[in-house]
């Protein structure tokens, strides 16, 4: 509990949250824009790029809005552990069903 208090103090302020919100919006805007540029969609980098962008958004929300960046390390463990297993499972399944292939 005392810990929560300190956490509360190290929390970023409203402005940080706003900035984060703006960044999220920008990334989303880029994603959608890219979707409408045939040249980009055609390029082999399209999917990887989109994945990276959404991963970034994912990370930002978790770190700032869910305070994982500032909160107790236990919570980091409780979240990242399962996340890794989940990611691994998705990847393995996609390979097994030939939706992904070694080259790319």
């Amino acid at each position, binding site marked *: 509990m005392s810990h929560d208090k300190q956490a509360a103090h190290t929390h970023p302020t409203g402005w940080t949250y706003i900035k984060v919100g703006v960044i999220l919006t920008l990334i989303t805007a880029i994603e959608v824009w890219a979707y409408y540029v045939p040249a980009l969609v055609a390029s082999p980098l399209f999917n990887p790029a989109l994945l990276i962008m959404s991963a970034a958004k994912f990370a930002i929300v978790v770190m700032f809005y869910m305070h994982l960046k500032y909160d107790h390390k*236990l919570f980091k463990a409780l979240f990242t*552990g*399962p996340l890794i*297993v*989940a990611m*691994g*499972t998705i990847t*393995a*399944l996609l*390979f*097994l*069903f030939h939706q992904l292939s070694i080259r790319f």
Partner: protein
Amino acid sequence: MATIAAPSYASAGDAYAENTGIWSWITTVDHKRIGTLYLWTALFFFLVGGLEAVLIRTQLAQPNMGFVSAETYNQLFTMHGTTMVFLAIMPLSAAFFNFLIPLQIGARDVAFPRLNAFSYWVYLLGGIFITLPILFKVAPNGGWFGYAPLTTNSFSAGPNIDFWVMGLQILGISSLAAAFNFITTIINMRAPGMTLMRMPMFTWMSFVVQFLLILAFPPITIALFFLLMDRFFGTTFYAIAAGADPLLWQHLFWVFGHPEVYILILPAFGLVSEVLPTFSKKPLFGYNVMVYSGIMIGFLGFGVWAHHMFAVGMGAVADSIFSMMTMLIAIPTGVKIFNWIATMWSGEIRFTVAMKFAIALIGMFTIGGISGVMHSSPPADLQQTDTYFIVAHFHYVLFGGSIMGIFAGIYYYYPKMTGRLMSETIGNWHFWLTFIGMNLTFFPMHFSGMLGMPRRIYTYDAGQGWDLFNMMATVGTYILVVATSFFVVNFLRSRTRGAVAGNDPWGGATLEWSIPSPPPEYNFAQIPEVTSRYPLWDLKAPEKTAGIDHSHADAMTITDAHAVPVHEETERHTAKELGIPMPLPTAKPLFTALSLVVMFCGLLFMRNDMFAVAMTLILGGAASMIAGLYSWLTSPLE
């Protein structure tokens, strides 16, 4: 061993509860009483599953037997597997989670006592839900891993599979709720000084299991939800005509299924890791490595599931990867086996029944493990898969592993739960008959399997070279029936006639042995300050253990002698007298659980186009569940 006269109690905590009537059990939120409920229920289901096995074996005693029909047989083996896995072993482990974890970490209860009660009631009702149909010959008949498309409407129109789908869904809710509860309990309810690396090994293995549970159950929940949608609402997840891929089910199931098998074994590993040191008068050999290997097993367990699917044609690359991942698991498991042997090495081994079961686990599980490694080589497995060789493997690990470990745990902790010891004489009969019976039952299956006998066949023709092995297995099963009957008798009569146990009948090392048997509802009159892994041993013979632990310099010296009172408590106080606030008894969890199951029952009617009934039950159930949750969450706990 303590010889002082103390009253005996039907079960944990009774001596202190205001009333001990049935209502007090229905409304209890005491982790010890919930543990007791789990134990009794799970043992009952073990007998049910065993009875199903007995019928299976009788039908297979000889070629072309007509003891049961094909349809009945298919329901029997499906329910046998389902019952043993979900209704017997998992809840038997849960019984120990509930009773033991708070005692071992020096807590007064679990983090969410009422959620705990909820888990139990959901389990009980779910168990009834999935078991009752067998009395009406409409029990699930798709095998315990219910491969699609056989389980879809087109091939299983009857209600059989509906019971299975919803039953497992219900049981999953119970397991998940319990898992969140114990994760929180172990992280956050440890007594001062009880660092993670001082936790008793059973608590550690249970901790790993809780993570396996929260990560393994979602996939099967989804797989079952798809099946439910297919069967009730015409989706196409497993609809061959729509181009569905039956392997989707298999992958989702085994992504759950393999971690599940470690969910079944790790608690047993934990229990023997408590029993072996006590009866060898030695600390566990290589505690840290035991912890890490447990974590390793759990983690690797998520990367091997497709070894159940070597015959489906995944391709050479996938086969190779999963094969090697699977073999890797043999390493941490081997470490455990060898460390257990090393724990007994140069000890003073006392052959109590509990110890015998623990030793038997080492010997028998190893056999199952080795056959497991034989499966893990795909080309060889193609001769083994779906034969009795597999059946032999998993009974050696499940019966020779989980069940042996759980019996060890029951003999070891029965005095703590009831205040009285189980009879060693009857216990020895139980052990030896079980040991002989299980080997006679399951060892021949290695041969019938490699000699070409497929599994899940309700009958086989004469002259196939399997007759002898099947007869042996059946005889072995009858021996197991006798053995189990000895256990049942022992379990029942020791409650009143067993020798009085006292706090610490075995000379245990961990906190649970520092308090009366059965423990008072508040467990610890005073929360202990823990300074080592073996607080009681330090207290009794500090010189023995002092300072030998590499892991913490300070670990083996005890600061506050009052922390763990070893003197027998003569007169006992209620929580009230000590002014310890205890959670209030409440029937709300039961009510909520009931509403939940009513909802599922509603779905059943949906298919017999009794739409009105269905809707009433579903909406009614939902409403009362929300009501139940609301009053539950808004009413004070203590």
